[in-house]
């Protein structure tokens, strides 16, 4: 069973523990400039929104890569970049509609979320459960539950 990152911006406080965890997992350094997940601060609306790759099934980046450096991890469903194959042409960064695959100047390759092989460090580090790692078929479960509670006619009748 595959899992997916589920992001709930309502719960995000903007602490950036996820960004530090991502950089530590991949580069053994606390460096938010190297994080593959970013938290965006919409100041005037008072909203913090974490955002990263959603692992598209028909991934634009994977299809666009001219050297087949982006491949499917069958176990997790993640699209992962093979560093020894990537030539840094950046075509994937143009192809991705969401901007979640980016070029890294230091390495001359691109990087994107690889779900940490099935145990995403960002979700583990998040103190508020704004980022969770859940059944990929049921990312809507919490929302469904909330609406189920709200629209439950029996409880309304009894209220």
């Amino acid at each position, binding site marked *: 069973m595959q899992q997916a990152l589920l992001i709930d911006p309502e719960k995000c*406080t*903007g*602490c*950036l*523990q996820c960004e*530090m*965890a991502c*950089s*530590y997992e991949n*580069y*053994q*350094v*606390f*460096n*938010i*400039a*190297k994080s593959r997940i970013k938290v965006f601060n919409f*100041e*005037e*609306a*008072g*909203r*913090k929104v974490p955002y990263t790759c959603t692992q598209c099934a028909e991934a634009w980046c994977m299809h666009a890569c001219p050297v087949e450096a982006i491949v499917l991890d069958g176990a997790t469903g993640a699209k992962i970049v093979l560093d020894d194959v990537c030539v840094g042409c950046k075509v994937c960064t143009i192809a991705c509609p969401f901007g979640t695959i980016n070029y890294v100047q230091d390495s001359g390759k691109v990087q994107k979320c690889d779900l940490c092989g099935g145990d995403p460090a960002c979700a583990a*580090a998040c*103190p*508020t459960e704004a980022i969770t790692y859940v059944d990929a078929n049921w990312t809507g479960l919490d929302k469904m539950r909330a609406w189920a509670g709200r629209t439950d006619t029996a409880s309304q009748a009894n209220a």
Partner: protein
Amino acid sequence: MSWAKRVLRVDLSSGRCKEEPLNMEWAQEYLGQRGLATKYFVEEVDPKVDPLSPDNKLIFTTGPLTGTMASTGGRYSVVTKGPLTGVIACSNSGGYIGAEIKMAGWDMIICEGRAEKPVYLWIQDDKAELRDASHLWGKTTWDTEEIIKNSHQDPQIRVSSIGRAGENGVLYACVVNDLHRAAGRSGVGAVMGSKNLKALAVRGTKGVGNIKDFKTFMQVTKEKKQILADNAVTGQGLPTYGTQVLMNVINEIGALPTRNSQDVQFEGAGKISGEAMHEKRPTDGKANLVTNNACFGCTIACGRISQVDKSHWSVENSPKYWGATGGLEYENAWSLGAANGVDDLEALTVANMICNEDGMDPISFGATIGAVMELYTMGVISKKQLGMDAPFGSAQALVDLAHMTAEGRGFGPEIAQGSARLCEKYGHPELSMTVKKQEFPAYDPRGIQGMGLTYATSNRGACHLRSYTVASEVLGIPVKTDPLETDGKAELVKAFQDATAVFDSSGLCLFTSFAWSVEDVQPQIDAACEGDWTMDKLMTVGERIWNLERQFNLAAGMTAADDDLPKRLKTEAAKSGPAKGLTSGIDKMKPEYYQIRGWDTNGVPTAETLSRLGL
């Protein structure tokens, strides 16, 4: 390790920036941030220096845990000699820029001299340069941050800047970072303004990688985060209500200084409380509070993001105040509210926004307004002088005077001097609720006796953040003591002062100390920093820092007479609440405190004390 081991020295007079190695011997003796920067400062600056002269220095400093995954590891401090107080100033701030400085590869930035024309310091990893800021002079901190990000075409830059208050020499001007976090007290922003340094803009991409033992560090910081999450204050109270969780509590125990400390309870406290910020307004059906907010690395998230009612008289014609932004913390809600008898939550939120926007310490500003309102009530300051009526409770006067003070208009420049100088000028020095000319914060020393000693002996002038004995006297952390009792408070204050100096030198936030003691910080420092960081070593570091600051202040001309409270607190008893009939027992606690500190009766550290601490 965790220190970047690099200091950036910026000579504003010549325009040169140069790199120096961090003095690692001092790092072992003073840890970082508050302690280490103070050591640099006292070694380099004449204690008698005029704070607003080019000879004063201004240090932006991080701690060894700044920029790490330790919870709250994003703090930085601004160290200088304070123009409000004439003693050491060290103001601590969260937000994101502290971590950004560290990730750019710097522990500390020492600014000296004075630029001929307005400049801002631009740091991009190893590169540092001064750039022209004439287009930024006269701008608010909000506009300054936006203009810098736009001109560099990089929204990921972090900015600390002064607003018009810092430019205009408001003696309690602060340095604002990330729009609504501030190195707030003692006038560090006025020093920055005197140096023609408008802003610090930083982009750091190098990261923090030199942790002594990464594996242990990751494990221990995770355990300590769990303690914060499980604690009722840091896990529930602070995220839900912010520091404003205290408004009703402190009012009930009769320690909420009201109307310039004439009263110790405020009838309008409920209307300006953390609970009130959650309530839907009748006008637009929305609550004042939008959400809570974390600083870098913080798993507590006590920050407030508020949005005012657009139809409120104070903002109806000013759309720039309509968006969500930093909301009221307890100290600000008190200083702008109870201290002046104002109970209009929206007006207080707006006054606080003006303080953020123009870089002004709301504690000192609000408390000074309290003195102005009392002088107005007595007929000493007239309506004609002020340009308005200013009785206690006037929200209109509060908001108008905030604008005038920041912008230097009308009576504003007099308010900009702080209440000590203002009350002195008008012949009523006894009405200034200050210690060492700094306004005290939101806890009345008649109702919480330990806070009287805290204010009187704080090395940066009256302050709650040097020994927050409220934790013990009100909240029972780590043990409950009686707030009305003076016995044992000297020991308590000393213990809190030394421990606080450790927190403030680590890169962590003092608010973790609601759940953590130094015992919880120690293993995090020890896993990160080279050297053997035992509890003994850390507590000695704390005490050493306290005494180093003390020595600087004595050399600056301060005496034991300056370790005192305003007469009102010693002669006018609390009128209501549990402390009814009580005055402050400062005169009893002070000699005990000097003795416990190992100081003589004049408050001077003895030779033995200094030698024990290696000073």
